[in-house]
């Protein structure tokens, strides 16, 4: 019997027991839907993170005054990460390291911002305009106005979402905004950078302005972070190691009690990979379990089908069908259940991914996942139907015909 006839035969048989067939298919749908949805969510999360990392820059190193490796390894509450202070001195020393293309010190704080009669609290950063612009590079796109220049004084550049939705009346280039009571002029507004990109909520001002606003609330030479762009073609990790040792000697610390961290794209992505792969594993396990349940459902249905269709199997033998072919016929039927479940599961999964996107969860469905889901469910179906089909093929023709 050729494949088309077998599939046709299977579908006819399934139709004649449609309720049970559908229930079995639903069992597979659940597993495949879960799989498609969960893989889609994890993929979406990864994409999101990747776009953020792109904003961060693969050649970028940021030094922050806190040992984040301790946070990561000891969990949140018990261990307070040892935090120190970064100073102007650190900045000057790191500046001398090799392979650096550009470097800026950053001074961040939370400020009260008032536009018209409305005031909000935002975190703003003081930067060295030329260096900062060079480090952030192409992801820093101006929508209107211009970026900061070294000669700027009391000037602001606003991220897209601050400008767009920070105030009820949208500030524009040339608007006056009062920051901690001091009058600043908006010189530029950034283009929308991406869904969760930190640049969108940035408020940037010249370093010296930030320093004077913060005044005594920080140490005399204190800075919040140092951002470095490694030269194109240089090894970021090697440069980071070099900077790390400069910092350790500058702070008179060692690996164990250090009070700062070097954050690189590689470091972030390895941290995130750890989280997402754990998430994938967890979600995958759930999807896997429901698929196993679906497969057991197929086996169960096939065992019942074989029992019910003993006479039919006897007849097939009587009209000359060989055992191997009978086996294939039933495996095809189990495969059809699998494919039906896989296809419907894929459609439902795609639908739910659409809903997730509407709700603001970035989820994605890749074509290879879609094809994989259907192929996989066909394989699961056929595997689940293997033993029942064997049983059908081995059935004694006489017994099978006698059965009434």
């Amino acid at each position, binding site marked *: 019997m050729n494949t088309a006839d077998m599939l046709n035969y299977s579908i006819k048989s399934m139709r004649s027991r449609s309720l049970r067939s559908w229930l079995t298919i639903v069992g597979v749908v659940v597993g495949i839907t879960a799989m498609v949805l969960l893989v889609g969510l994890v993929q979406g999360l990864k994409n999101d993170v990747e776009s953020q990392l792109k904003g961060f820059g693969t050649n970028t190193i940021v030094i922050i005054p806190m040992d984040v490796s301790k946070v990561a390894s000891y969990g949140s509450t018990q261990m307070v990460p040892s935090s120190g202070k970064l100073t102007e001195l650190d900045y000057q020393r790191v500046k001398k390291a090799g392979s650096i293309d550009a470097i800026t010190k950053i001074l961040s704080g939370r400020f009260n911002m008032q536009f018209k009669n409305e005031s909000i609290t935002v975190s703003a950063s003081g930067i060295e305009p030329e260096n900062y612009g060079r480090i952030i590079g192409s992801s820093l796109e101006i929508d209107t106005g211009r970026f900061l220049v070294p000669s700027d004084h009391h000037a602001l550049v606003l991220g897209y979402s601050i400008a767009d939705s920070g105030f009820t009346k949208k500030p524009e280039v040339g608007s006056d905004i009062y920051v901690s009571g001091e009058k600043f002029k908006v010189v530029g507004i950034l283009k929308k950078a991406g869904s969760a990109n930190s640049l969108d909520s940035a408020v940037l001002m010249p370093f010296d302005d930030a320093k004077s606003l913060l005044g005594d609330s920080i140490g005399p030479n204190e800075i919040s972070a140092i951002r470095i762009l490694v030269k194109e073609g240089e090894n970021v990790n090697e440069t980071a190691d070099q900077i790390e040792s400069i910092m350790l000697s500058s702070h008179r610390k060692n690996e164990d009690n250090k009070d700062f961290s070097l954050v690189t794209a590689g470091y972030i992505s390895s941290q995130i990979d750890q989280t997402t792969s754990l998430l994938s594993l967890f979600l995958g396990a759930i999807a896997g379990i429901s698929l196993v349940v679906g497969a057991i459902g197929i086996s169960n249905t096939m065992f019942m089908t074989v029992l019910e269709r003993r006479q039919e199997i006897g007849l097939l033998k009587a*009209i*000359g069908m060989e055992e191997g072919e009978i086996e294939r016929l039933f495996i095809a039927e189990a495969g059809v259940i699998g494919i039906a479940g896989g296809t419907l599961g894929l459609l439902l999964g795609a639908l739910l991914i659409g809903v997730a996107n509407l709700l603001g969860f970035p989820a994605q469905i890749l074509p290879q996942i879609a094809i994989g889901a259907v192929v996989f469910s066909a394989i699961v179906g056929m595997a689940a139907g293997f033993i029942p089909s064997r049983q059908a093929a081995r059935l004694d023709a006489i017994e099978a015909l006698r059965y009434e």
Partner: protein
Amino acid sequence: MTGAKSASSKPQPAGKAAAMCTQAANSHEAAGTSLHTGNGKPVPPGMHEREILRLECVSKLYGSGESGVAAIRDMDFTIHNGELTSVLGPSGSGKSTLLHLMGLLDKPTTGKVYIAGTDTTSISDADQARLRGKMIGFVFQAFNLISSFTALENVELPLMIYDVPKEERRKKATAILERLQMGHRLNHLPSQLSGGERQRVAIARALINDPEIILADEPTGNLDSKTGEEVLKIIEDLHQEGRTIILVTHDESLVKVTEKVVRIRDGRLVKSEVLV
């Protein structure tokens, strides 16, 4: 099935049947001839010469030892091309078992079954399946139609197994069904057909591969007498066309259409007569 409730079938130890086999095998020639001279009437000359099916000393035992049942014992006979033979016996006498052995659905415990000269006991299961598909058409008491297939598809099924193109098999199946006055029921499901109609479909299915032998096990058993007669008429017609048919029944009245009768009791050949 009702085999076990027969009054006459006392289980016999398996050993006995086996022991008698050699004797029966030796008298094979005699048994073969007796078939043609059973009631003194000779077979019309030149009509049935080609041997198409031969049982040689066939026994079928179920179980073993004391509880073993010999369903068929030392069965020896020959069927020739074009014969319409009835196998007659009371319930439980082993008729169905015999039919299954002849149709290669079952394997004899001892002895040999020859189909068109081939010793079927020495070939593989797959070869047996192929031989069965090509040479033998079955008609069962319970029709055994596939409930999810239409009449036409049921008849096509044997050709489907052999990958005959759809067009061709559809044409062939339609022609056979039309011949059996079923042309107006081609696309009906078995559940939408009467018993007689179902059996016609089953007969059409048995015919579609143009088999050498048609084996019918109580084909009228589930039908009322009128429809039974109709089915019998079809069998007679097929015989007139020169088909080889073996009709298994416990119904003495069916014997009238056949030209040869093999009477069995307790799995043993009691008497075979030529009725022509």
